[in-house]
């Protein structure tokens, strides 16, 4: 995909509106990118909860403008404690995603556009926060794009895991500060959010890289998904990409997948509505 600015995306950039809305920890700030009118897909929104939007590798900004040019209105906003939103700047923790912030954004979009249908997106911690919103506001969420987020109780040490038992395992364990790791399992927090996703009518695409340290966490997810019913397995897809989703410079491929999935997803949803 060519990420270069076009007349259509530049027009969307010029139409952008700074917005703010109440969150549980104070005001949340964001940018609303209205869909191009000529191709507007009624009430279809893509929301990007996230952290900073400054810098030159601003794929979320460009993805929002691209989607808006294709007819989907977008909302990018800073989670609390990030960018321009209120709140303390603390390091994100896998056990504490900001689902309440995302739920606040969903309620805000409901006020801006009654009957809005929303596709949520996120990478890493932002993805966890997006998924956690299913526990609060599942009714208006149509879909979730979820990339490379930590979902186990704690990071599974890849070096130790690969080393297995024996001398190498003990050395790797000592290097990682643990001589014995508890058996890995999905975190209760994630299981709760994931259950809410499964219980909703929404679709989801979850992606992980095979060479990331999180790949072992995705193995746990894959096991859990085998127990899902047919309907859930049709709606919720896990993709395992060869390589890494955390390597330097991998972001364009992730956002390209988001755009193609959103277009395909809403394209088929439109067809269902028409039919």
């Amino acid at each position, binding site marked *: 995909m060519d990420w*270069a*600015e076009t007349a259509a995306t*530049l027009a969307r*950039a*010029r139409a*952008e509106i700074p917005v703010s809305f109440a969150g549980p920890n104070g005001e949340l700030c964001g*940018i609303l990118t209205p869909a191009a009118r000529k191709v507007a897909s009624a009430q279809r929104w893509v929301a990007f909860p996230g*952290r*900073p*939007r*400054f*810098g*030159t*590798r*601003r794929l979320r*900004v460009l993805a929002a403008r691209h989607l808006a040019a294709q007819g989907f209105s977008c909302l990018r906003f800073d989670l609390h*404690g*990030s*960018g*321009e939103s209120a709140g303390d*700047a603390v*390091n994100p923790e896998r056990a504490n995603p900001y689902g309440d912030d995302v739920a606040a954004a969903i309620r805000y979009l409901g006020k801006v556009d009654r009957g809005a249908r929303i596709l949520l997106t996120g990478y890493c911690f932002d993805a966890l926060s997006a998924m956690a919103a299913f526990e609060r506001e599942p009714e208006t969420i149509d879909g979730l794009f979820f990339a490379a987020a930590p979902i186990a109780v704690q990071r599974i040490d*890849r*070096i130790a895991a690969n080393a297995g038992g024996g001398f190498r395992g003990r050395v790797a364990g000592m290097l990682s500060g643990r001589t014995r790791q508890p058996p890995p399992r999905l975190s209760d927090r994630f299981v709760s959010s994931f259950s809410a996703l499964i219980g909703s009518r929404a679709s989801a695409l979850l992606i992980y890289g095979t*060479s*990331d*340290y999180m790949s072992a966490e995705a193995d746990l997810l894959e096991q859990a998904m085998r127990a899902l019913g047919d309907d859930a397995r049709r709606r919720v897809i896990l993709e395992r990409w060869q390589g*890494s989703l*955390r*390597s*330097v*410079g991998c972001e364009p491929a992730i956002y390209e997948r988001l755009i193609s999935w959103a277009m395909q997803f809403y394209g088929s949803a439109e067809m269902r509505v028409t039919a």
Partner: protein
Amino acid sequence: MRRGSRANGPIVMFCNCLSENYWEWRAEVAAARAIAARGYTTFSFHPRAHGDSAGDPAELTIDGLIDDAVAAVDRARSMSAAARVVWVGIRFGAIVAAGAISRRGGAALALWEPVIEPKDYFAKLMRHVLYYELSQGMRPSVTVEEMRRLLERDGRVAVLTFDLYRKFTESASKLNLPGLLADWRGPAYLSQFQVHSKLSRENSRLKDLFASRGIRVTASAGPHASEAGDPWQHPETEIDRMREWLDGLG
């Protein structure tokens, strides 16, 4: 723009670009809010190809970034009655602020962990890729020399939080901070955003150079609000010290 209540206060212009650190923009926002609360008018902006602004990073040059800073200060002046401008250059933004000073002047300059030699800075960014991959349990996929060759061959190479483009690195590598400020003699503030509480060798040299030119320079190197954490994430102490320096300018 955040309007302050001081009748004769300067306008404080923030210059930031590239943004290699997750918390840099947040630190700028926190500083602008704190300084505005003290009565100063502040102005922040996203230069071309950054954040919410338009533009193609492949076409970025240092002159373009300086043009944007000049356009920003002209706009800020047209919106306020401030006669004086205090520049705040954050990381690579220090080079841009210095370039803007050479075109539009400035009453004072605050530097937050400034990039002094762009050429060295680009090499450091490439080394950080290797450190990152090691920290993720990966084998380094590329050497610094290979990244240099990629930049030369393809015109672009990915570093941690952004892409380096040949056009930009070539345009910026010709410049350095001391050279851009060769004719400037206003008061300066040098803030080190590192865990160490002693000025680094690079920052010490810059301070000494400023002093040798007769520039009144105030340096700050911690301790920070978060002794063990990332000073960019907890910039409160540095912001307080810069506010005191601003108050002292009169």
